[in-house]
């Protein structure tokens, strides 16, 4: 069961998301209304810590547990970063959830968010279908 470790890491991630209240629709409203530092603190310190971790891995030359050299996934620039980014931002403010929190909201007992999830799958599918007609 080589995937169990990812299940456990996901559980850890889910627990933190809920305890940080970043899955709260209210917290997202508060963030975009600039009425609280909470979300900025969470995201900012997450980026900072992740950056230090990645730096440490590089400096120490650490490899993954299976001995592979650690590869950084490339994020090439496309116009989609801008257009898609704006579209996602609009949706984030409506649902109060980016994709991670969608799963966490469902797990937290807000079962109606299953509808949001299915609609997000549909949105991904429509993108895949019309991808070649969109500016990139």
């Amino acid at each position, binding site marked *: 069961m080589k995937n169990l470790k990812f299940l456990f890491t996901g559980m850890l991630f889910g627990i933190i998301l809920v305890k940080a209240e970043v899955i709260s629709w209210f917290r997202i409203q508060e963030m975009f209304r600039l009425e609280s530092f909470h979300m900025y603190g969470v995201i900012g310190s997450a980026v900072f810590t992740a950056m230090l971790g990645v730096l440490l891995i590089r400096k120490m030359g650490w490899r993954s547990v299976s001995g592979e050299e650690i590869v950084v996934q490339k994020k090439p620039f496309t116009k989609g*970063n801008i257009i898609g980014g704006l579209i996602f931002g609009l949706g984030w403010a409506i649902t109060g959830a980016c994709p991670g929190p969608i799963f966490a909201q469902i797990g937290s007992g807000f079962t109606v968010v299953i509808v949001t999830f299915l609609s997000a799958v549909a*949105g991904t599918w429509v993108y895949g279908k019309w991808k070649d007609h969109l500016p990139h």
Partner: protein
Amino acid sequence: MNFLKSPWPWYVAGPLIGLCVPLLMLIGNKALGISSSLRHICAACIPGKIPFFQYDWKKESWNLWFVGGIALGAAIVLLFFHNGQPVDLNPATIAALRANGVQEFDELTPGDIFNWGNVASETGLLFFITGGFLVGFGTRYANGCTSGHSIYGIATLQWPSLVATICFMAGGFAMTNYILPHLMRWLLL
């Protein structure tokens, strides 16, 4: 036990979220990213004949285990570490949302909006169907979401992720401050 039950401050939760990036690198040489799971689900269940969904999604199945874990982790909090207290929001936010028709503030999401009774209504069409669609379409078009771009991408010093993050925020600001209040007053009042 008290610590597990109460919400965690940003300086505890943020670094823990950040540590998941090097953790995933070390345990499996994986890049943190959650919206990709939606693509894998399409590839697994409804690929059609669409080239974008023709790939071996099973090779990426770790990502599905990861998001399954997120839901499970959230359920563990609900079952064992739930304090049942409302979110400690800025009173100005509460006042503004009340003025726009939100009535329930005792959970993580407003119960008067996020309930099954609203699914077939205009409220559901906005908050679940439209919102979810924009999230799924937008994240794939942007090639990532808050985790893949804002955390992983910026932490690995990739400028396109910073551009994407700025656009996420711009879209969110526009919706929250200029569009959503009108829609909420129309739907909820």
